[in-house]
């Protein structure tokens, strides 16, 4: 188990960059494809589902504040069950990390650097992320603080500058196909990014506990901000691009291309690329750290031993899983939700129920 400790604020920052990081770029396409004009509303509802997952995670955290999710499962349902629950979850986390890496590489090879081979992007981001993960949670807590401000600044600029293209009528009709597309959007949002909240449970215990204070409100606030930010990105994409938005995989990139202020500020999509790299880099660093944490705690060995081999596994997974972007798109919006539901959400629910029953028995 890792031992470094960070403050409440740093943990809230890590949670924010973890949740918003890659979703800021990757969620609009699948969400708009699923929920059409009501994608922004579906995003808000998916955010509510995120609150349910976070409340389950925090219930366990409050029960065992000094333990990571692996030990919480072990203490609640026993050692054998911990292996049965955590090993598939570990594989799911590898799968999701590889998907995020592929998503970033795909963005660059389809929109900005078409001639560069995909593996170059994967390799560079994974090397940087693995070095950061090796540096530990304290370094990430300090470093991501500044990067989060840069990311949010770029995000605000990207949404404000194309204001002259926004047409309120593009939002209408709100739900022309009824409620099912909205449900579809919530379904997509459940798998990515909101089931990622569960993986964060591996590192919540690394916060420096202060008497009379709790991390809960910081995380709930972080999730709320995440919901608002992601909803705004979808809303602005719809306002700016209208029906064109449904044909684009990365609507924010197209929105950035539309920016034109006095023929001076033009074609700023490269800045959008910077935001994409920052967000993905922070998310992957945290995921590699979480993967190492899960493995080392499960097998009770020294932490940070496996970051390099996990990085190589993710690298190879990202290179071999998909042959093209269509396969990734299908997998992301089609498979990710049931996979995370079965191997992540159901076991979490079971562990929380058992923990509650145990607590009741103890107090009775």
């Amino acid at each position: 188990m890792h031992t470094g400790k960070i403050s409440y604020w740093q943990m809230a920052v890590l949670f924010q960059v973890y949740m918003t990081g890659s979703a800021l770029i990757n969620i609009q396409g699948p969400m708009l494809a699923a929920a059409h004009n009501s994608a922004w509303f579906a995003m808000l509802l998916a955010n509510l589902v995120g609150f349910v997952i976070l409340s389950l995670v925090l219930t366990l955290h409050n029960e065992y504040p000094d333990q990571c999710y692996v030990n919480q499962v072990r203490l609640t349902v026993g050692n054998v069950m911990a292996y049965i629950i955590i090993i598939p979850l570990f594989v799911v986390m590898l799968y999701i990390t590889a998907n995020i890496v592929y998503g970033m590489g795909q963005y660059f090879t389809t929109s900005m650097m078409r001639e560069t081979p995909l593996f170059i992007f994967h390799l560079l981001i994974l090397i940087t992320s693995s070095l950061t993960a090796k540096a530990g949670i304290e370094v990430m807590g300090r470093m991501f603080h500044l990067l989060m401000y840069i990311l949010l600044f770029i995000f605000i600029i990207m949404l404000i500058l194309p204001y002259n293209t926004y047409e309120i009528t593009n939002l209408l009709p709100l739900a022309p196909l009824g409620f099912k597309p909205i449900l579809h959007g919530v379904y997509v949002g459940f798998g990515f990014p909101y089931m990622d909240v569960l993986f964060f449970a591996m590192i919540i215990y690394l916060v420096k506990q202060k008497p009379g204070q709790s991390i809960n409100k910081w995380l709930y606030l972080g999730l709320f901000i995440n919901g608002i930010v992601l909803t705004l990105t979808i809303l602005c994409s719809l306002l700016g691009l209208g029906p064109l938005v449904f044909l684009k995989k990365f609507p924010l990139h197209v929105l950035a291309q539309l920016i034109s202020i006095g023929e001076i500020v033009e074609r700023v999509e490269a800045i959008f690329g910077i935001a994409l790299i920052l967000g993905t880099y922070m998310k992957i660093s945290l995921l590699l750290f979480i993967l190492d944490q899960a493995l080392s705690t499960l097998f009770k060995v020294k932490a940070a031993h496996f970051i390099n081999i996990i990085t190589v596994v993710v690298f190879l997974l990202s290179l071999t899983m998909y042959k093209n972007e269509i396969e990734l798109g299908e997998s992301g919006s089609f498979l990710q939700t049931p996979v995370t539901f079965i191997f992540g959400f159901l076991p979490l629910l079971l562990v929380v129920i058992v923990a509650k029953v145990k607590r009741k028995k103890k107090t009775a």
Partner: protein
Amino acid sequence: MIEKLIIGCLIVLLYFDYQSIKQDNKSKKIYLMLSIPAGYMLYSYLTGRNLPNLDDGFQVIVGPMAEAITSWLQVK
């Protein structure tokens, strides 16, 4: 060519990484366990990515369920 060179460098890096944790018996075993899927995927990558992968595995396990839900949610 550059691809293979990078993969060669990664294998050398992993070798030294393995040497650094070798004295811890349990860590060594887990490291080797993780090397098996890595080796499989490397082989798959070098032979044209035609071997079954993790995505195919999930497709088999949850594919029918995912298909049923998605087709119910999609409005034609």
